[in-house]
């Protein structure tokens, strides 16, 4: 495909994706909007912005395809990757997509408890009037509800992994595409992070350290999401992985009381970084697998 045309399409997509989210969020910040009230409950306006933001990458993709006359193919090269194919062991990658977030979340929280054991607190879970062993069902509940409510994940993945990543790969090769794509995805979240999304506002180095931590996380997640997309030629596994990740599917997670953390471990950025170390490792593995597949494809062609 013509690289100049690809660059043009990518640029249009990025302009739409960022404009649709950055403009309302920055306006909200400019007019003094807050993230949460005194009790920590998200304010309705930011709730609304976050809800709509999930769909903006897909809207941007549709607009870009319409303007640049790229077409709306469901499957195949240059398509929206909306097909679902379970043959040739692709079903394994659907399962991987569902279980991977559970694996890295559980191991992330286990690692966190090694650093900050006092955060392991069953009393928080006991307030929900559920027996302690019910925590074991949280991952399966999150997976099922994430599949049912995966339109949010689909709203992002149709844009990022379904449209942006193939174009970045064509322009820069897979390794740089994953890093650049992860950075773009992370930067896209910056206005929400500035307001307090994920890390709050009361941490050392806010908001810049939060920006940095989040970008590292998005690069690692981008590698995993891109891998499952390329293995299945479909954005559905990525949508499921994204949804399960956002649901925080972890039994240990519901037994974690972050308020009991002390010293440097009371920093939200430190908490996020430590709990995401397993995800970072998996992201590196995903990157290696992507590069290996790219080399095999090059040799075959």
């Amino acid at each position, binding site marked *: 495909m013509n690289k100049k045309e690809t660059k043009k399409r990518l640029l249009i997509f990025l302009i739409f994706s960022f404009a649709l989210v950055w403009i309302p969020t920055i306006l909200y910040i400019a007019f003094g909007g807050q993230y949460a009230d005194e009790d920590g409950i998200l304010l*309705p*306006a930011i*709730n*609304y912005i976050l*809800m709509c933001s999930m769909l903006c990458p897909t809207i941007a993709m549709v607009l870009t395809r319409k303007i640049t006359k790229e077409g709306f193919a*469901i*499957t195949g090269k240059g398509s929206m990757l909306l097909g679902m194919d379970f043959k040739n062991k692709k079903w394994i990658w659907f399962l991987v997509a569902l279980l991977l977030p559970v694996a890295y979340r559980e191991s992330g929280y286990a690692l966190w408890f090694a650093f900050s054991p006092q955060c392991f607190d069953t009393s928080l879970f006991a307030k929900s*009037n*559920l*027996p302690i*062993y*019910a925590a074991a*069902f949280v991952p*399966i*509940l999150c997976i*099922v*509800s994430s*599949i*049912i*409510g995966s*339109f949010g994940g689909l709203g992002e993945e149709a844009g990022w992994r379904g449209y942006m990543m193939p174009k970045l790969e064509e322009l820069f090769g897979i390794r740089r595409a994953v890093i650049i794509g992860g950075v773009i995805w992370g930067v896209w979240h910056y206005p929400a992070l500035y307001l307090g999304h994920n890390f709050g506002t009361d941490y050392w180095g806010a908001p810049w350290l939060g920006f940095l931590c989040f970008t590292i996380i998005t690069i690692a997640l981008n590698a995993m999401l891109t891998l499952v997309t390329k293995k299945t030629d479909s954005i559905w596994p990525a949508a499921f992985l994204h949804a399960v990740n956002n649901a925080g599917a972890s039994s240990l997670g519901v037994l974690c009381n972050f308020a009991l953390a002390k010293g440097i471990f009371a920093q939200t950025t430190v908490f996020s970084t430590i709990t995401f170390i397993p995800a970072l490792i998996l992201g590196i593995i995903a990157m290696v697998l992507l590069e290996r597949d790219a080399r095999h494809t090059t040799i075959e062609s």
Partner: protein
Amino acid sequence: MVGLMYKDFVAIGGKYLVCAMTAFLVIMTACSFLFTNPTTALVLALIALTFVSILIIWPIVITEARILGHDAKKKQNFTYSLPTGKKKFVAAKYLFFLIMEYGILSYTILLMQLAQINAQAVGTEDLSSKMTAVSSFLPLFIGIYLLNFALETPFFLVLGYKTGTSVKTVLLVAAMFALVVFMLFGDASVLNQFDLYEFTQYLKDHPVVAILLEAVAPVVSGGLYYLSYRVTAYLVQRREMRDE
């Protein structure tokens, strides 16, 4: 197969449905920003609930007539003779209905979330929590419709629309007749043992059971749906072309 699904999309008036859903969402969003008082929030929530109810019932209304209804034998014989084959024809029906239900569920969740955020914005926390409660029931309805489709589709696709409708009517009438006979001559006191309030209390006292139901029910529905597809595809492939 995509072509077959697009045919069903057109048959159910999909374009008009999508336009209506998009327009309703835009109007609801605009009203949420323009009118910010508890009364409006309540009115918007009720309108959203009405629209959600229509969308929930829509699949039942159009499924038989439009998706499964190949009234003329000639039409079905023609479809079976297409290059896609019988198995893909059956797969297209099941897949289309699944996608339609997924789309309706996603849209209704989005609508309920919007109503919930709007209610929260004007300070009606009670209404907000009710919207959240309604959202939690939506997957249950979808699961029931999937099961309904899984049960009736084999009849319609294997036996044909008219015969399938006749069989379904006979079964329903027989069930109603049996119920009437039971109510007239049977021991109706058995029904006293089924208390919805007690069942709700049981779920409240045993929340793990509720969690398991919530987690396992969709998986079971999905499994039965797939099983229904395999059975239907097998039976349809074995059928000879029907006589004209």
